[in-house]
Every structure is written in structure tokens, then in C-alpha cells.
């Protein structure tokens, strides 16, 4: 009797577990690719582990690595530069990208060629972009210096990359050149989804171009914009490749970012414990900033 009662329950149990089984490979992959390295770094951040001294962690040292990172002379300047670069870069790239997207959406002559050309910078590795701009910023005959002189704003005597006042801006400009098209293309795709009948109705109601942008187009692409803004902000917060090729953080600490400091600690000084602590400090900061941003940006959203 009991068999007869239990037997029909099997398919139900399988059905109940099936979603978990199906999702399990993805979860396992995610855990192994994301969570494991983070937890491994968390563990290392509490150990003295410098590859210049030993191939293995030598000693548990509690929060000493965190203290060393936060009290280091390069931390605050790096954080300041990183915030300037990420916030300014994201705003400029978004604004320029939106302008370009609106231009593309106007179906002017030559737009299909422009669309194809726009994608090019985003396909180049940042290191290569760094080298391209290094030649452009070269004090001995670089294009940027020549153009600046032409418009009556000659570069500093130390060169664009050698001056404390222009080094960070030069990195920012290279990043803007590379990533503005990314915003433009994604926002252009968002604009294409705006119904032409909606625009036509607004036009018949006498709405100005500005009103249509502000009241119709922008609200409709805002969900896309919020997501790519988060993505670019996080990428910019971790910038190190352009810094490595263009300035190595100099002169002094003028253009050093947290990402470059992390590179220095991990791949030049080989201090795994210190680099792990830096990693976690950056992870925490980025998550706090992104959570705050998301809380404001996603407020009152219907999903």
C-alpha cells in the first residue's frame, strides 16, 4: 500500500527539483569564476604574501594589509584621480554619445558609413589606444601639441603627459575618444526603438525638438542609458592600461589611479597580500557607489 502511495510522488519531486538542476551548471560556473577568486583574494588579504620573499603566504597579519593600503601616500591621490576620471569620463562620454546618437537617428547623408566607422575605436585594445595617443602627445612633433599651438593654447613645456596639470586630462581624452562611440551606438539602438508614431504625434501637437528630446526620447532610452552608465563607470574606475602606457601614474602622483596602484602592487611588486587588500577595498567602493547610483536611478521603475 505504501508503494502505491509513494510512487506517484516521484514525478512531482523531479518536477520540483528540475529548475534547480537546470540552473545548477550556471550557478556553479558563476561561483567558480566570480566568487572563488574574490574569496581567495579575501583570504590572501589577511596574510603576508610577497612573491619577492616567498612563493607561499608566510604569516597571518590580520588587517595590516588594509591599514598599509589606506595609510599609503598614494592612496588618496589615486582615489581622487580615479573618481575624477570615472565621473567626468562617464558624463562626457554619455553626453557626447547621446549627441552622436541623435545625429545618427536623423538619417542624414553618410550616416551608414559613420555608423560603421564609429565602431572602430571600441574594437582597439586600450593598450594600443595608449600607444596611439602617446605618439599624438609626443612633445617632438605630436599631432595634439601642434593642434593646441595652432589654436593658441600651446602645451606645457614638460609636454602634455609630463605636466601635472594636463596628464590626467590627456588620459581622459584618450578614453573619451575610444568609448564615446560605445555610448553612441547603444543609445542609437535605443532611439531606434522609439515609435515614429509617437514622435509624429508630438510634432503634430507642436512639441519643439528640445521637448521631444527631453520628454519623449530621453525617458524612453533611459533604462538603456542607466545600464551602460553603470558599466562604463565600473570600467573607468578600474582604468590602468591607458595610465600604464601613457604616464605610469606620473608626473609624481598626478595621474595615478587605483587600478594602476593595484597593478603596481600585484604585478610589479608582487605583493599578493597587499594587492588582495586593495582589490577588496576597490570592490567595496565600487559596489557602494553603484548601489547608491542604482538606488537613485532605479527608483520608481517598473520592471
Amino acid at each position, binding site marked *: 500500500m505504501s508503494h502505491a502511495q509513494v510512487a506517484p510522488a516521484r514525478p512531482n519531486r523531479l518536477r520540483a527539483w528540475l529548475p534547480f538542476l537546470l540552473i545548477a551548471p550556471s550557478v556553479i560556473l558563476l561561483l567558480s569564476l566570480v566568487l572563488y577568486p574574490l574569496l581567495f583574494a579575501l583570504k590572501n588579504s589577511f596574510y603576508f604574501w610577497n612573491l*619577492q*620573499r616567498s612563493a607561499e603566504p608566510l604569516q597571518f597579519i590580520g588587517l595590516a594589509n588594509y591599514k598599509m593600503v589606506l595609510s599609503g601616500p598614494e592612496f588618496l591621490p589615486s582615489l581622487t584621480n580615479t573618481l575624477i576620471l570615472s565621473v567626468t569620463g562617464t558624463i562626457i562620454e554619455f553626453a557626447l554619445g547621446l549627441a552622436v546618437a541623435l545625429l545618427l537617428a536623423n538619417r542624414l547623408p553618410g550616416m551608414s558609413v559613420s555608423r560603421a566607422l564609429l565602431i572602430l575605436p571600441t574594437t582597439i585594445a586600450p593598450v594600443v589606444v595608449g600607444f596611439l595617443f602617446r605618439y599624438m602627445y609626443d612633445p617632438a612633433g605630436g599631432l595634439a601639441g601642434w593642434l593646441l599651438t595652432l589654436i593658441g593654447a600651446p602645451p606645457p*613645456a614638460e*609636454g602634455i603627459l609630463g605636466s601635472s596639470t594636463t596628464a590626467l586630462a590627456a588620459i581622459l581624452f584618450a578614453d573619451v575618444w575610444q568609448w564615446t562611440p560605445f555610448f553612441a551606438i547603444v543609445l542609437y539602438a535605443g532611439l531606434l526603438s522609439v515609435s515614429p508614431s509617437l514622435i509624429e504625434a508630438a510634432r503634430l501637437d507642436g512639441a519643439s525638438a528640445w521637448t521631444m528630446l527631453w520628454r519623449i526620447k530621453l525617458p524612453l532610452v533611459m533604462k538603456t542609458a542607466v545600464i551602460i552608465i553603470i558599466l562604463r563607470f565600473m570600467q573607468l574606475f578600474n582604468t590602468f592600461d591607458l595610465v600604464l602606457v601613457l604616464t*605610469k601614474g606620473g608626473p609624481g*602622483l598626478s595621474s595615478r589611479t587605483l587600478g594602476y596602484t593595484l597593478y603596481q602592487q600585484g604585478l610589479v611588486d608582487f605583493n599578493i597580500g597587499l594587492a588582495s587588500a586593495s582589490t577588496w577595498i576597490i570592490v567595496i567602493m565600487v559596489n557602494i557607489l553603484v548601489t547608491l547610483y542604482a538606488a537613485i536611478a532605479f527608483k520608481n521603475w517598473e520592471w
Partner: protein
Amino acid sequence: MTHSNVTRRRFLGTTAGFAGAAALGSLAAPAIAQERSVRVLTVGDPFQYSLRELLPEFTAKTGIKVEFEGLGYDALQARLISSFVSKTSDADVINVDQMWAGQYTDNGWIQPLNDFAKGDSDFNINDFVPETLHSISTWRGNLVTVPVASYSQGVMYRKSVFEKLGIDEPAAGWTWDQYKEILGRIHGQEVDGVKMNGTVVCGAQPVPVVHMFSQLSASLNAPWFKAFPGAETWDFTPQMNSENMKRAVSLYKELYGLSPQESINYTWFDAGTRFSQADIGMFYWWSAYFTLVNADGYMTGAPSKVKGDFGIVPCPQDGTNPSRVSLGGWSLGMPSTAGRPEEAWEFIKWATSAETQKAMGLNDKFGHMFSDFSRESLFADSDLLEVYPFLPQARAMLNGADGKLARPPAPIYTTLEGIFGLELNKVLAGQSDVDAALEQVNTLYTNALSGNFMLPYVQPSFNDTFDATKALIASLA
């Protein structure tokens, strides 16, 4: 029409033929695997291009095939450390910068070469200039690498500029005060329509600026530590805020004031190339540039504007104190994980032999660009003297040169160099003054050394003197 030619039988026959060839190929594979070969990982310095040209000769002579790869400075070290830590055999022969040798040996990442050298009559260790072995290749009384390119530091000056400005050409035994005074007379003058800079410095952080500055700190007798490496008991208490170090940094800042301002971002080759552009009166730099400034760029072969118009003289000294010259360079070592140690030693011995080094020097594919010899016999070689007439001067500059004094190879050298390079760059950029920068360096050194269990230093010490190296050479000869 073509289709009609492909019958099923022909298709099957062809397929079977390919399958048979593949099967035979797989049978032949073990035979290929047994071929002798060696993997070599080097840095992309000029010597590497000369050496690369000669690799077919090595294979022809020994039957050993060479997989040869050149990387940038940072990339090389990252790749090496990565393979050491993962205990993988990335290469059988590796390039080792002089400051890495101690750290690599202490960690067991490279193996001492004493046994190889001692048992090999062809190696001829007595032919090496002892200063090069001491500075580049020894650690705790062992031969751990073999020099493949040795550089001292010397001064290059424009003869025509000196003549037109009525300045006497400098001679050995001169002082840094005289050096500075001459630069002041050149700086800002117009010669042949060119506005001259007194000198050019290497200002880029962190490594290049330390390389050039450390010649000054060596000259002005400003050691980094209290007692290392020539001491019975090592004491890494930092001495970075000493009066002599302050004098050295102040002098370097003055030299920057007499240089093109963009040199704050100059790396090694930028400084050399700038001299080649003929608007620099005089500068000191690695002896590799005695040759490289003749060319208008890296590996172009085209002559520069200063070719034939510059003289070479030893670095100035500090008053009447004896001259102290920085000696650096690259050597070849053997990782502990090397899968083919016999082949690796064959390659090291060949690449550093007098015969190969001479051929590297005479190689003219990209213009002559290798004169960084470590072997005594090559400085007097008549063929080489025709190409590099300055070799006797270059040899004289090696006398008493000491790389371990100029840039002490402490176990966490890379970290210390990073700290120092940043602060030197800040001084040049006007972001810090000399006193504040050196106090900062001293504090950060203390923190880093304490954090790495080097203050106090409780591990075994080794009195690493030039005499100890000479004794080692005698024991291996």
C-alpha cells in the same frame, strides 16, 4: 566538368592517403620530440637583436634548436615570476636583471651554475672582467648567472659644441661641480642655429629615473642601507635621508633644470635619442649608448646627427673622492624547473663566449649596436676596435665599478625602487622638495623592510665583497 573527375573511388583513395600520411606523421612525432632543443626567454634590449641573428650558428654547431622570445622589461619579470610560482618550466634559459639575481636564487627559482662552470674547460671564467661578474652574476658566493651584456656609465659630450663655445674637453678625474659648471655654460646657447640644452636626464618613474640617478648616489657615496651587501652581518636600516643622499638628489634636480623639461617623462632610450638629435651638450648614461647614439633611432641603421661628433669620458667624481661607477646589465640564468639543463648550459656558454660576443659586436644588420662586453679579451680585439674605437675607455670605466653599491640587490628591491622612483619623479615635478621626499622614502623603506621581515634581518648574511667574487672566480677556474 570538374565534378565528373571526382569519383567515389578517387575520393575514398585520397582520404585513405591523407589518413595514412597522418598515421605516419604520428609515428614520426616521437622522433621529433627527441630532437634537442632549448627555450630562451630574453628582454628586448639591443643585445637580444644581435644574438637572435646568430641562433642558426648555434643550432648548426650543437644540433640544438632554439625557441627564442624577447619581452619588455615589466612583462619579462611578470612572466618569470608567474612561471616560478606555478613551478612550470616556461623556459630553460632566462634573462636576469642584476637586481633580480639574489631574490631568484634565495627563493630557489634559479639554480647556481658553479658545477656547470667548474666542470667546463671551454667556459674560461678567467676571461670575464671580475667587476661584471661581481655586479651582475654572483650571489652569496655562488655564480648564479653569466653576463651577456654589461653596461657601465660614462659621459658623452658634443665635441663641436665644446669647441664653438670655447670649453675645454673634460678628462678623467674631473668633478661633478665642473660637470655642472660646463652644463651651465652650454644651456640656452645657440650653436649652429640650434638652441642647446645643457644635458638630458631620465625622469620617468619608477625604474628609469632610479637607473640614472643611482650613478650620482654611488659617486657621492650615499648608500641605501646601513650594512649591505659588503658586511659580515647585513643591516637593512635605510639611510635614504643621509646628507650625501640629499646632495645627490639636489644635484639631480639641478641637472633636470638644465635639461629639456619633457625629460621628466623620458625612459632609457628617450634620453639617448634626445642626445642623437644634437640639441644636448653633454649627458651621462649607460655605456650601451656610446654605440646607440650613433644611430637615428632604434634599429634603423641610419646615422644620427651626432655620429662622429661626440667624445666619451669617465663620469665625474665627488671632489677628491675616488670615482664610483654604476655597473649594470643582463645575464643568462637557468630556472630550477629547466627541463633541459644540459642544453641550457650549452646555450649560456655559447651566448656568453668570446666568439659569439665578438660576432654579436660585428653584426651589422641594424647598424653596429652591441659593444657591451664582459670578457677581457674583447676589449683588445683588433676587429672590434675598428668598429668601436672607444673600447679601451669603456674597459677602463669598468675598473672599480660596482653595481651592487649603486643599486643594492636587496630581496625586495623592486618595491624599494618603486618607492624611490616615485619620490624622485615628484622632486623633479616640483611636487615635493628634496628633504621631504627623502624623509618620505626613508619612512616608507622602514615600513616596507619591517613588513617584509628584513628589519631586523635574521636570515644568514654573506659578506658580498669584490674580494669574495675574486675568490669565487679562482675556485671555479
